[in-house]
Structure formats: structure tokens, C-alpha cells
């Protein structure tokens, strides 16, 4: 914001004097707004730092760090006290810790514009660790609710509230059904392989106009995708093997159980996978979320012309990223328990697929 005037001064655009005046006054307002924001954050800072005048003059990393570590210490000690807390008070005690953690999170967000990115990352990690500890305490110390009766009641409540909302806001209810109708219509239109059981499915993208492709609701199938596509969506697969040529955009996998995937892509996101092996070549870091028992190994697919397809997709080089997995459910330094590198002696060899044979062409 500070260099706005500078930018304006160097701008060569001829300006109507009136417009120019107006513009300058707006720039002033913009920088005023910015100043107010700075002042506000300074005020917040000096409130808590009133004891040391040196840090009250500017938002500094040091003053942030001292505030952050003070709060963290107090949260740590509250967490430690949880075990000694009277069970009747426990829930409110844990709630207040949760609120303190949220405040800390807010502090990081507000301070992040002047913090070095390392500090932002490490403080966010600290926060997620605190949350994890709190969550563990929560499940350990607070007895599970008895479901039998409450569940029914809440279901009724939900039903009632649904019908209430239908009565009070018919517009919303309508829009929802419209959107569903619209969706099912479109989903039918998009190219893909769906709802099969125990089949071998082959799709060759060479010379096709297909941009995005969907593979969904398959059980005990083998899927061979030859050639390259822009985007691949995989949804609800069970006991399947999927062999795919290069994807030049991204792959999104949601729901896979006891499967094997061999795929190459610029980006890969894996959600809700269980007991599944991935043989990947990927330009960026693959990510998993809500997944357990997933294992990773390098890409190992071969078909006639794959070298050229990979080269054209800029996926001809092994980046080693197949093993750089980020687990969004495990934001900490130690290895996530949800995924592992597939031991070499358990890996399949090179997989050779072809167009011909017993395959069924997808639509």
C-alpha cells in the first residue's frame, strides 16, 4: 500500500485533471484505511506489550513470538490441568482451552502479514499440535455419549428443522432440488466409466476430444486409460486396479478401498482412501486427506507410445515426488501413520497394458 503514490507518479497515463484529483483523493483514502489497520494492530500489540516500550512501536516478529509463546505456555498448563479437573467442570474447562487456541490462531492470522513465512508455518504447526492434544484429551476424558435415545430425538429434530426450513424458506428448498436435477443431468453427459462390477474397462484417449474423465462406482474392475487427458476424477472404487497414462492437469480421488492405482499427473489429491497402493509420477507433492493404510511407490506403467505421451505432458522425468506425501490430517513433523512407502519387495513389476484384448471400450 505504501508504494501506491509512487506507482501513481510513475504512471504515464494521461489523466483528466478532474479525474486525477478524484483519483488522488481515493488513493489517500486507501492509504488512510491501510494506516488505520496498521494503527489498530499496533494498538492491539501495545495493549499487551505495555510493559516493554521498545516493542510497542512496531509490529515485530520478536513481540509476536513472545506473545505467542506466553499464550502457548498458558494453554499447555491448562491442558496439563485437565486431568486434575473436577469432571463436572471438565467440559467447560476444555471449551475454554479450545477458545484460547482459537484466539492464538487468530493472533497468527492477524500477524501473518509481517511475519516471516517460517514463523507462520511453525506457529500454525504448534497450533495444530495443541488442537490434537486437546482432541485426544477430549476423547480420553469425556465419556462417549449414549446414543440410543438421544440419536432418535436428534433425528426427529433434524427432520423437523428440515420441514421447518422448507416451510419458512421455500425459495431455498426449490433451489436445492433445481441444482440436483441440473447436476444429475450434467453428470450423465460427462465422459466416464461408471457402475461396473468385475469387468476390464479400456479407454483410449488418443485422438479424442475428451478433456475431463470420470471413473466412478466400480467394484472389482481393471481400468486401463491409454493416452492423456486434462483432468481425471475417481470416485468410489472398491477392489479395483487402475492404470492411467499422463494427466496434464490434476487427479482427484475420492473414496477408494483395496485398490491399486498406477498414474502420472501434475497434481494428485487423495481423499478417503483405505488400504490402497499408489504408484505415482507427479510434478508436485501428492496429498492425502481422511485416508489410512495407503502406500506409495514410483510409477511403473508401459504401453505403446507412453514415452511420447509422458514427454508431451512434461511427465517424462522422475521427480521423486511420489514419496513426498502431505497428509492434511497429520500436520506435524513426525511421519504420518496414515501412509507409508511401499517396500520394494512388495511392489508390482512394470505393468504392461495394451489397447487390444478383452477390454470394453468406455463411452
Amino acid at each position: 500500500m505504501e508504494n501506491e503514490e509512487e506507482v501513481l507518479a510513475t504512471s504515464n497515463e494521461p489523466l483528466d485533471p478532474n479525474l486525477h484529483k478524484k483519483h488522488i483523493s481515493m488513493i489517500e483514502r486507501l492509504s488512510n484505511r491501510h494506516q488505520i489497520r496498521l494503527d489498530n494492530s499496533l494498538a492491539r500489540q501495545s495493549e499487551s506489550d505495555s510493559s516493554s516500550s521498545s516493542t510497542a512501536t512496531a509490529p515485530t516478529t520478536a513481540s509476536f513470538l513472545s506473545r505467542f509463546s506466553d499464550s502457548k505456555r498458558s494453554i499447555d498448563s491448562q491442558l496439563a490441568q485437565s486431568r486434575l479437573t473436577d469432571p463436572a467442570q471438565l467440559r467447560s474447562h476444555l471449551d475454554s482451552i479450545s477458545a484460547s487456541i482459537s484466539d492464538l490462531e487468530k493472533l497468527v492470522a492477524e500477524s501473518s502479514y509481517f511475519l516471516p513465512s517460517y514463523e507462520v508455518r511453525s506457529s500454525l504447526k504448534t497450533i495444530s499440535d495443541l488442537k490434537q492434544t486437546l482432541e485426544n484429551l477430549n476423547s480420553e476424558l469425556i465419556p462417549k455419549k449414549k446414543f440410543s435415545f438421544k440419536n432418535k430425538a436428534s433425528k426427529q429434530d433434524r427432520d423437523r428443522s428440515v420441514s421447518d426450513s422448507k416451510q419458512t424458506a421455500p425459495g431455498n428448498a426449490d433451489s436445492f432440488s433445481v441444482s440436483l436435477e441440473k447436476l444429475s443431468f450434467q453428470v450423465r453427459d460427462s465422459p466416464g466409466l461408471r457402475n461396473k462390477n468385475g469387468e476390464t474397462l479400456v479407454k483410449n484417449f488418443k485422438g479424442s476430444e475428451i478433456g475431463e474423465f470420470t471413473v466412478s462406482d466400480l467394484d472389482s474392475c481393471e481400468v486401463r486409460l491409454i493416452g492423456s487427458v486434462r483432468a481425471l476424477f475417481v470416485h468410489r472404487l472398491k477392489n479395483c486396479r487402475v492404470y492411467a497414462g499422463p494427466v496434464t492437469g490434476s487427479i482427484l480421488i475420492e473414496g477408494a478401498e483395496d485398490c491399486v492405482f498406477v498414474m502420472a499427473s501434475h497434481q494428485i489429491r487423495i481423499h478417503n482412501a483405505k488400504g490402497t497402493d499408489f504408484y505415482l509420477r507427479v510434478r508436485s507433492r501428492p496429498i492425502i486427506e481422511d485416508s489410512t493404510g495407503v502406500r506409495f511407490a514410483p510409477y511403473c506403467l508401459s504401453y505403446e507410445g507412453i514415452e511420447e505421451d509422458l514427454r508431451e505432458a512434461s511427465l517424462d522425468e522422475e521427480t521423486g515426488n511420489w514419496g513426498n506425501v502431505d497428509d492434511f490430517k497429520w500436520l506435524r513433523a513426525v511421519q504420518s501413520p496414515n501412509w507409508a512407502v511401499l517396500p520394494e519387495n512388495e511392489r508390482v513389476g512394470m505393468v504392461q497394458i495394451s489397447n487390444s484384448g478383452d477390454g470394453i471400450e468406455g463411452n
Partner: protein
Amino acid sequence: MRMLMVGLDNSGKTTIVLKINGEDTSVISPTLGFNIKTITYQKYTLNIWDVGGQKTIRSYWRNYFEQTDGLVWVVDSSDLRRLDDCKMELDNLLKEERLSGASLLILENKQDIKGAPNPEEIAKVLNLEAMDKTRHWQIVGCSAYTGEGLLEGFDWLVQDVASRIYVLD
């Protein structure tokens, strides 16, 4: 001006920010946390907050709402299956009081992919016409891959924020 970029994971938020800034977009990992970019756009300095869209970290979005001038909602036009998720998250976001004054730019990304529905069709699914009448909003089809539509979208957003600030003070 402070801009907040949000949307489901895999919609292309980081790619859009890098593309606008003229940076390499060939290797981008899914965002774990957030990125902040300060770029000079026309005569303005934009602080763009690009926040990760994975489900686990969507609850962190609210930490970035404060003082947002422009809100950019990015949609993966080719992800038909999750358009309902997308609508739900957007609806939740627009209920947020701290964002009530922010101009809303909806970028229908990945328009370059064959078979993707056009911006009008998506606007219908998202039921954008039902939005609060006081909201300033605009929907623009774009491709972070080719860069098409990005400048058109941000031109509108920056102009709209600027003109609101005229009126406001």
C-alpha cells in the same frame, strides 16, 4: 486492497494467483496453509491471500475474513460432482458478517477443458441470482492454464472495490 481467494480444493486458486503475477505455474503443490502475494495491479497494491481449500483446513478460512475488500470464489468448472459442495461452502461464506461488505468475484476456472459447462450454467446451479441484493458480484469464466478471463475478472474486482471506497468515505 486486501483480496481473499477461497474455493474448494483443486479449483486452481494458487495457479490463478501465480498466473496473474506472471510466475511459473508448472509445479504447484496443493496448498497446505496459505500463501500471501503482494502485487501491483494497475495503480493499486493488492494483498492477495490464497488460502488452501482442502476440507480439513476450510475451518481456518474464517481467520482471514477480517478487513477483506474483495472476495474471490474459485470454482473448478469441470468438477460437476462437487458443485453441490461448492454451493454449500459458498452459501456458508456469504452468511459471514465480516465479509458482508466485500465485493465478490466468482471465477469459473478451467473453462479451457473440453466439456466443462459454461459460466451461465454454473451460475444457475450455484443459484447466484438468489444472493443478497446488496452484494456487489460478478461471475467470469476463466482459465488459469491459458490466462484467459483472469484480467477481466480482476479488473472488475479492483474497480468495484475502488468505487465502493469512493462512496464509503
